[in-house]
């Protein structure tokens, strides 16, 4: 075997040993971002291909999981940009409208307990997550489904910790608003409440 082929084999083995074990976490993230197993498969495959192509750029000893998540997030955003005209721009007025949508005085606190939402199907929940703007969707998935800390999320998404907290705060409120409306439309929450 030539020196070049030997080197390739070494790079491949290193990549397989340190990057491939994170596939489950990446797949879960991709699945929640896309809400479609086929798209999630494509996204994960593309992420690993890109990661392998640029593996020489990865700084050894740093967090490879964060590096892989960054590649996946950027790949997703690029694909999303191709589909939508102005996806990068989050409409903060819409976000504000969500805030105004639901007020404490309108809702009995027992409806905030999960009972009101426990009847919702997983599909309803997935759809509500998918409808969140990508920036907000990313942080809520990483925090509440993947269980990452603010610092880890900040590292993955390349934003300050304060922005993580702020986006997470808004994302949960938006999600609550959507789920509350779903539950209401399906009669799980009585109208007079």
């Amino acid at each position, binding site marked *: 075997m*030539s020196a070049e082929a030997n080197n*390739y084999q070494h790079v491949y083995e290193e*990549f397989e040993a340190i990057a491939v074990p994170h596939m489950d976490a990446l797949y879960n993230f991709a699945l929640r971002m896309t809400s479609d197993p086929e798209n999630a*498969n494509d996204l994960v495959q593309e992420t690993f291909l890109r990661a392998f192509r640029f593996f020489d750029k990865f700084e050894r000893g740093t967090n490879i999981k964060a590096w892989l998540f960054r590649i996946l997030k950027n790949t997703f955003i690029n694909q999303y940009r191709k589909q939508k005209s102005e996806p990068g721009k989050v409409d903060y007025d819409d976000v504000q409208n969500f805030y105004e949508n639901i007020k404490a005085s309108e809702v009995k606190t027992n409806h*905030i307990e999960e009972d009101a939402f426990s009847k919702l199907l997983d599909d309803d929940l997935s759809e509500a997550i998918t409808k969140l703007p990508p920036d907000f969707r990313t942080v809520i998935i990483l*925090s509440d489904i993947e269980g990452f800390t*603010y610092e880890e999320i900040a590292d993955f998404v390349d934003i300050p910790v304060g922005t993580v907290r702020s986006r997470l*705060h808004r994302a949960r409120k938006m999600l609550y608003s959507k789920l509350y409306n779903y539950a209401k439309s399906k009669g799980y929450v009585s109208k007079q409440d």
Partner: protein
Amino acid sequence: MKTKTSENITAFVDNELKNNKQEKELSDKIETDAELKFEYQIQNSMKNLLQKRFAEQKAPEHLRSKVLYSIRTEVPASRSNQSIGIFEQLKQLLNPGKIQFAFGMAIILAALLFFSNLFQLKNKPRILQ
């Protein structure tokens, strides 16, 4: 000010407030302020709901194989021909671009041969009988 307090509630729910005094103050505020309590309940219920309903799923086995295969066949330039299998060498030989090139060259050569023969025939001295 209220927004900052609301966002601190998110950090409180996630156990991300690094200051015990701040935690205690916020906890007291949540108990006494209906609006803040509502904020707390929203943040807490959404976090619990997602944690409960979305257990981690394993990546499908076919995806794992596909990824490993695509990485193995990636950057072929860095691999010597010795290290790749006969099947892949055959695949490289049967590359559509290469076939078209070879076909084009064959046509050009045939045309050259044809015209050179024609030229020779034309210029051949006639034998007088």
